[in-house]
């Protein structure tokens, strides 16, 4: 029996020794091991939909222009210079891009205007699953290659900022000879596709193209996924890991690496899909991963005090283009009155929310636009947290505590209605639940009863879309493109979009339309500032704060380029420490 006990003790030691040796020999010096919480849906610049797929797609595919994370301005990537814009006929404009002469695909074939045209044609092709990308491209009327220069492409489009941005920075470019090897749409023009009458039968070659293009192999199979970017998809096991390998003869290798999109420091980038946040942190502590996904606020602040963790990892917090709001459904009789909405804005202490829930890592905002974006109105003062002002506003609106039960009430359509509101958040967000509990406490002082409820994400979003809610915590993630408020605040978007607040104002509608059609930055910013004033006055929702992406990075890397959109960094910029 004694001998068995000895073996029992020895076995783990043998295992541990064997495994440690294995890790030592795995050559991790220039490999980046990144944890992500779910699989990307596609490695395909036209078909991907999720935000975590975007950051991986940017390593494999390149756009003509891309936003410089340092300046928030579009800068040339595949294009050799910013586009030239010239007037065209009928108030349209022509935008011309020249593609870098050295830019080639993995098989050394040059990137040409035909590839750009193909990518835009494929995106607009009926049957291709790229519906989400089409809205931005609607202002483009035609695209054609220069007859004298195969590397020059012209777009004819409407004159507005959004469309101009979309021609360069919306789509990663695909090689036409690999994604349409049979030339099924080679002779079809962009105009033919956008002018296609949906009542007619789809031509056979179009239908065949859409089926082929949608095939999973172009989104997942390393033999079929090819871009002009610095990395190549090498393997992908769903739910487990995804490996990108650096292209050794990449065309952009000798390009100045000041712009992050030309940085390709790690030899390999391996993404591990781990859903459980605690396991990610433990794995990092065990030196099994180098970079984590966005951390929960509490984890971030716990790790700040963990000296052992900080010996191996750096913590970083980068501004994220997202804003937190509390939606108020103006279609509900109680919230239809602006005084009630304004009173609720006075009853939420945003500063305490930032301090307690966000642990100080947010900035108070007074409108829907992120405070780092051009056009944000600094001059608007937030509604002060003041229960007395709130009480006065509620009394003005006719809400009094007639029965002395501590909750205000009012006769609405002949029925005595208590001022009771349901606050909804989606399951899994402790911070949002805490925000609801805080509002519950603060509102009680003014005679408003708040009931905090949660729903699973899909049920939550369905309730918002059906207008079946009163108050709901929500976070909008913006993008680098000029922000179009139409889908969120235009009255046409109440049923047909994301105007969950049921907000409707003719003044706001005309300003929103002016923003969408703005031809230059001045018009865009002026109208945005006016719109923020109107929204501040009408209080369609309570504007709270911005967020920060909080991540950890191994000290094996000396630095990285922070990004304003998740995951908060560009993986190619993870530079191994010397």
């Amino acid at each position: 029996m004694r001998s068995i006990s000895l073996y029992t003790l020895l076995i783990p030691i043998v295992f541990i020794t064997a495994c440690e040796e294995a890790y030592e020999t795995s050559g991790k010096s220039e490999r980046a091991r990144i944890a992500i919480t779910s699989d990307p849906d596609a490695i395909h610049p036209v078909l991907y939909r999720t935000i975590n797929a975007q950051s991986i797609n940017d390593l494999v595919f390149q756009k003509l222009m891309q936003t410089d994370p340092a300046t928030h301005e579009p800068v040339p990537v595949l294009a050799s210079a910013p586009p030239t814009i010239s007037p065209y006929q009928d108030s349209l404009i022509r935008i011309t891009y020249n593609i870098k002469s050295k830019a080639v695909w993995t098989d050394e074939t040059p990137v040409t205007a035909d590839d750009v045209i193909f990518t835009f044609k494929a995106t607009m092709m009926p049957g291709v699953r790229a519906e989400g990308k089409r809205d931005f491209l609607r202002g483009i009327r035609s695209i054609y290659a220069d007859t004298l220069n195969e590397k020059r492409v012209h777009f004819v489009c409407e004159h507005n900022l959004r469309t101009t941005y979309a021609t360069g920075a919306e789509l990663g470019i695909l090689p036409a000879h690999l994604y349409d090897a049979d030339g099924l749409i080679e002779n079809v023009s962009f105009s033919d596709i956008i002018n296609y009458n949906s009542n007619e039968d789809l031509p056979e070659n179009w239908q065949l193209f859409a089926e082929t293009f949608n095939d999973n192999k172009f989104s997942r199979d390393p033999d079929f996924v090819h871009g002009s970017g610095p990395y190549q998809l090498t393997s992908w096991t769903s739910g487990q890991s995804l490996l990108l390998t650096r292209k050794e003869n990449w065309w952009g290798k000798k390009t100045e690496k000041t712009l992050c999109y030309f940085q390709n420091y790690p030899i390999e980038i391996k993404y591990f899909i781990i859903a459980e946040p605690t396991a990610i942190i433990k794995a990092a502590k065990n030196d099994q991963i180098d970079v984590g996904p966005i951390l929960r606020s509490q984890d971030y602040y716990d790790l700040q005090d963990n000296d052992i963790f900080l010996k191996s990892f750096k913590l970083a917090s980068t501004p994220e283009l997202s804003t937190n709001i509390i939606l108020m459904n103006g279609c509900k009789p109680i919230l239809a009155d602006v005084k009630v909405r304004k009173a609720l804005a006075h009853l939420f202490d945003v500063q305490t929310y930032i301090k307690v829930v966000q642990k100080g890592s947010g900035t108070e905002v007074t409108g829907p636009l992120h405070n780092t974006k051009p056009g944000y109105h600094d001059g608007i003062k937030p509604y002060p947290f003041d229960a007395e002002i709130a009480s006065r506003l509620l009394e003005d609106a006719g809400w009094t505590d007639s029965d002395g039960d501590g909750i205000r009430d009012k006769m609405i359509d002949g029925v005595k209605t208590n001022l009771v509101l349901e606050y909804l958040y989606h399951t899994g967000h402790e911070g949002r639940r805490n925000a609801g509990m805080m509002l519950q406490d603060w509102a009680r002082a003014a005679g408003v009863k708040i009931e905090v409820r949660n729903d699973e994400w899909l049920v939550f979003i369905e309730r918002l879309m059906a207008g079946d809610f009163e108050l709901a915590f929500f976070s909008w993630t913006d993008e680098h493109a000029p922000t179009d408020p139409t889908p969120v605040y235009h009255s046409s978007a109440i049923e047909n979009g994301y105007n969950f607040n049921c907000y409707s104002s003719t003044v706001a509608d005309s300003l929103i339309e002016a923003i969408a059609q703005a031809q230059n930055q001045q018009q865009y910013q002026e109208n945005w500032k006016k719109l923020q004033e109107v929204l501040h006055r009408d209080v369609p929702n309570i504007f709270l704060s911005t967020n920060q992406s909080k991540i950890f990075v191994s000290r094996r890397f000396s630095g990285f380029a922070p990004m304003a959109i998740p995951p908060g960094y560009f993986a190619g910029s993870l530079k191994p420490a010397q």
Partner: protein
Amino acid sequence: MAWRTLKRLLYWFPGLLSVCLLGFVLIQLSPGDPVLARLNLIPDAVSTHESIYETAAYQSTRVELGLNRAPFYLSVQPITVPDKLRSIAHPGRRKALQSLCIRRGDSSTVLDWYNAHIVLRFRLAESEPAMVQRIASEILLQSETEEILRRYRLLTEACQNAENAALVMQAARIAAKLNENQQGWKSLIPAFQWHGLNNQFHRWLFGDSGEGGLIRGDFGRSYRDNQPVAPIVASAFSQTLILAIAAWMLMFLVAVPGGLRLARIASPGKARFWLHLLLVLYSIPSYWLGTLMLTFLCSPDFLNWFPVAYKLMDIPENTSWLSRQLIIIYHLILPVTCWTAAGAAFLAIQTRKEAQAVMQSKGYLGAKARGLSDKQLMTNHVAPRALIPAIGWLGGLIPASLSGAVAIELIFSINGMGNLAFQSFHMRDYPVVMAIILIAALTTLIGTVVSDLLLHYIDPRTREMTTK
């Protein structure tokens, strides 16, 4: 025994079919739209000027997933609710119309009004401002006739074009009929509707146009990424099976000898101590034990002895076979221990109880009186009987392993069936969910047959019963 086994196998088909049907009904009743999950609702994902339910993306995805079909061959609903309502993709409108039909007791008036209003909406969209269109849209979400009529009055006032105002009044007159001659009592009469073979369940079971379907071994494609379901489930099943086999082996190797040893402890105090310890171990939830292990045994903050995540296992190509196996085992130690703990404790308690019963039997006492050694007594008399609860338990152990794996697999990041089931429910990936339900049912049946066969060979009493 062969006939008995064959009979058991014959019972499988109705059993499996019932489980599939039950799973299918539960899926139909669960909230959450798989189309929205598939489209991954983000602001850019839909056109900004039309309802998501009206977009080509939503409509085509709904058709692609077969969700525009009736759920089953037969449906039962109030006689006043027409089948046509299912073709309305917008849940808010569908719900409002259903409610109107039930109250009104006459679907034809409701549908007449709905169609008239849709025509009106198109007209208003061409020539009226956004505010007017908004009111027209909101009307479709109302289920109270009075509210509909009130909004029509608002709409008439808001219209800028006199012709449009006249059309609104015309639609309002049709809506007013909803209040006349109400026959809500008719909604109490159930209507059985036969939908034929063009339904979701039939498609899943028999496929479409002679292709696919469970009957041909095709579980369909995942809603999430359009990948075939079979390889996804097979990959997850293989991971869980490795874990399960390791756990069962550990359970039997530790629990059965442990239980037998416990039965032989003479001191009541000592026996009580071990029994209490086992009960404590049995009561610890596996997710809590897993979290404790993760915190204290996988972290440089305490003891950094074990790896955290199975899927992070990184074996270099030039690793020898033995090292490779050792690395795999090293990664399995914690999840397997965690998974085994409660089961092993339970099994040890059961084995002890059974062994004690045998040790008090006349047969055992007789054998002892005949001078058999302790080892012979344990091997020939106690152990075979004490194994009976363990074998009986085996039938339920296999499916329990699949379902109980959820917490363990999530904590230790193992891509097994539990993890897959959790993710698939979350994403409303119903083809994968149905495949998991089917496999769980199948493993239960296999487990029951295996344990029956084993019992047949080990326990003479069951052999006698079969013979009789």
